[in-house]
């Protein structure tokens, strides 16, 4: 049972009544194990893990004077809620160059959506071929793609940047002309796509290769070519895996700082929320009521995505327990 790479989701097998009854029996047995000490420990750990975020939320809702005069834990004694911090951190122009966070939030969205959709498209096609249109060396290619996780992002930054701004040359021979995409969304999308591919291909391949082979064969006998099988059979059946990877990738891109910082070239036109926030932590110093509001804004979208689609997200993580 060394489940290093558990399947993202297995084909739905309806439980019969007897099986379901057995499962609940087993749960009872497991439950009988629990002890008050264990429960207490879990509660303590949960509180410890939640308090930091909670403190952030509370502080962001307090007035400047309150936030600076006493700790947020005293808030419950004198509750006084304000949304002013959010208003100023989002829309104010007073934070040196660059202004409030709102435009950067838009930038983040503009980065995230294509940087999620493009890898999904490219990786699912590649995963399908590697799983079902097998050819000599397809296994080898799969392992190489997986192993490319060994390349740290940091290694690719300089060469990619040079490629985006200067093209590719060997001596005086030009392989690729200047792309003129340095500092644009395109550069960021492309980079995110490249960096996500090893994991994406791995996850989707894992799932797709577990689809029953007879269904694919049935489609072949029914007269579907390889492209048609992908479109009409494999793609619809792989939706759970695609969804879980999509959520995973969305959160990852939303939270990324390094790629955006490097390929966005620091321009406020394309910088995402994380990059701006990282700057502000320096310049806003100890204006905690604003910083916490900004921090909460940056985590609220991934949090919504996370809670709404938690099951899928967990599946993605499970299958990708080898993410670099």
């Amino acid at each position, binding site marked *: 049972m060394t489940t290093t790479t558990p399947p993202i989701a297995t084909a739905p097998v309806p439980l019969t009544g007897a099986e379901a009854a057995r499962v609940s029996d087993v749960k009872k047995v497991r439950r009988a194990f629990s002890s008050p000490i264990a429960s207490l420990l879990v509660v303590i750990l949960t509180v410890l893990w939640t308090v930091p975020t909670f403190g952030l939320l509370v502080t962001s809702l307090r007035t400047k004077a309150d936030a600076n005069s006493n700790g947020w834990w005293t808030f419950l004694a004198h509750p006084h809620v304000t949304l002013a911090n959010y208003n100023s951190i989002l829309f104010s122009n007073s934070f040196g160059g660059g202004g409030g966070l709102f435009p950067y939030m838009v930038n983040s969205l503009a980065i995230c959506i294509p940087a999620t959709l493009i890898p999904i498209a490219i990786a699912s096609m590649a995963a399908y071929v590697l799983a079902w249109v097998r050819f000599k060396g397809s296994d080898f290619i799969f392992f190489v793609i997986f192993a490319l996780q060994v390349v740290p992002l940091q290694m690719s930054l300089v060469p990619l940047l040079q490629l985006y701004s200067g093209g590719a040359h060997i001596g005086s021979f030009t392989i690729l002309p200047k792309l003129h995409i340095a500092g644009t969304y395109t550069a960021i999308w492309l980079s995110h796509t490249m960096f996500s591919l090893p994991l994406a291909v791995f996850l989707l391949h894992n799932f797709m290769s577990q689809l029953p082979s007879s269904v694919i064969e049935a489609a072949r006998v*029914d007269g579907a070519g390889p492209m048609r099988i992908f479109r009409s059979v494999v793609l619809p059946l792989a939706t759970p895996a695609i969804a879980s990877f999509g959520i995973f990738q969305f959160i990852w891109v939303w939270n990324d700082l390094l790629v955006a910082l490097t390929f966005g070239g620091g321009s406020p036109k394309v910088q995402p929320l994380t990059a701006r926030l990282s700057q502000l932590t320096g310049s806003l110093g100890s204006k905690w009521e604003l910083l916490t509001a900004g921090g909460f804004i940056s985590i609220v979208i991934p949090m919504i995505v996370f809670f709404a689609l938690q099951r899928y997200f967990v599946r993605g993580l499970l299958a990708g327990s080898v993410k670099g």
Partner: protein
Amino acid sequence: MADVRYINATCLYEGNPVPAINSLNLEIGDGEFMVLVGPSGSGKSTALRMLAGLEPVSTGEIDIGGVNVSNRAPKDRDIAMVFQNYALYPHMSVAENMGFALKLKGVPKEERDRKVVEAAKLLDLEKYLDRKPKALSGGQRQRVAMGRAIVREPSVFLMDEPLSNLDAKLRVETRANIANLQARLGTTTVYVTHDQVEAMTMGNRVAVLKDGVLQQVDTPRNLYDRPTNAFVAAFIGSPAMNLRQAKLVDDGAVLGAVTLPLPRPVLEAAKGLSTITLGMRPEAFTISSDETGLALDVKLVEELGADAYVYGTLSGDSPEERPFVIRAGGAAPPRIGDLIHISILVGQEHAFHPDTGERLG
């Protein structure tokens, strides 16, 4: 409608020197119901999948309707296949499942719908056309898989153990339904199973395979009455035929205390041998009232009502020998621990070569 011919068809997998199917020659007539049967690993499914185009024909060829299809894609062979686990498309409704092949062929929607409904009527599936496969019972799923094949009106049906996922009762019922349906449609059918009862009850002819080699093709009756070798003899029939080594004498074979007279052709074929393998079906015996014939030490009695099968060891059997089984009347079968005497009915014995297992005479 078409006939099917395997001509020296061989299937070799890369990295495995032993062919999965070795030089298979088999002719299946137009409209015939041919059953491929064998133990697991015999290559019966491979033979079917070669016909479907899902496994390569390494050498030799396969003809459908007189045309060599060895190198054609499955979709260009005019076949339809029913898979063991049905292989329904989980994301499509029953109607979509059945109509998918027609859709790919570019058949207009009205005609498609008409054909799907027709097939659904035939299989009693009309009520379920809008359901997804997961909302169906095992038997209904099986019928959808059949329907998907029927809708296409192919020239050959291929069925790969289509009943093995059903429970025993449903299996018997569906067995009859499939046989009826095939007779009605008159479509050439190749049917793979590991269950020799299914093979005997459904097939016009049955082909027995072992280790990728065709052993015998014949009607169920002939297969039972004149098995071509010891393997087929033991494989066909339940309980299996008893096989024992017997010493050859001038006019017969000696088994225990009994000398069994053998017909002339057998003796002629066995010339030069000192022993032969003697095969006797369980029903080829009578229990003697006196102490003549073979002595059988009864170890187990299976009562089935009308009949009873009596398992035991013959005097002189080595401990590794498989139990010897005979059929007795259901009324008053012997009991465990009894020592009974049995005599073989004349002309009911089969003789095989002791080394090659080939039938003698």
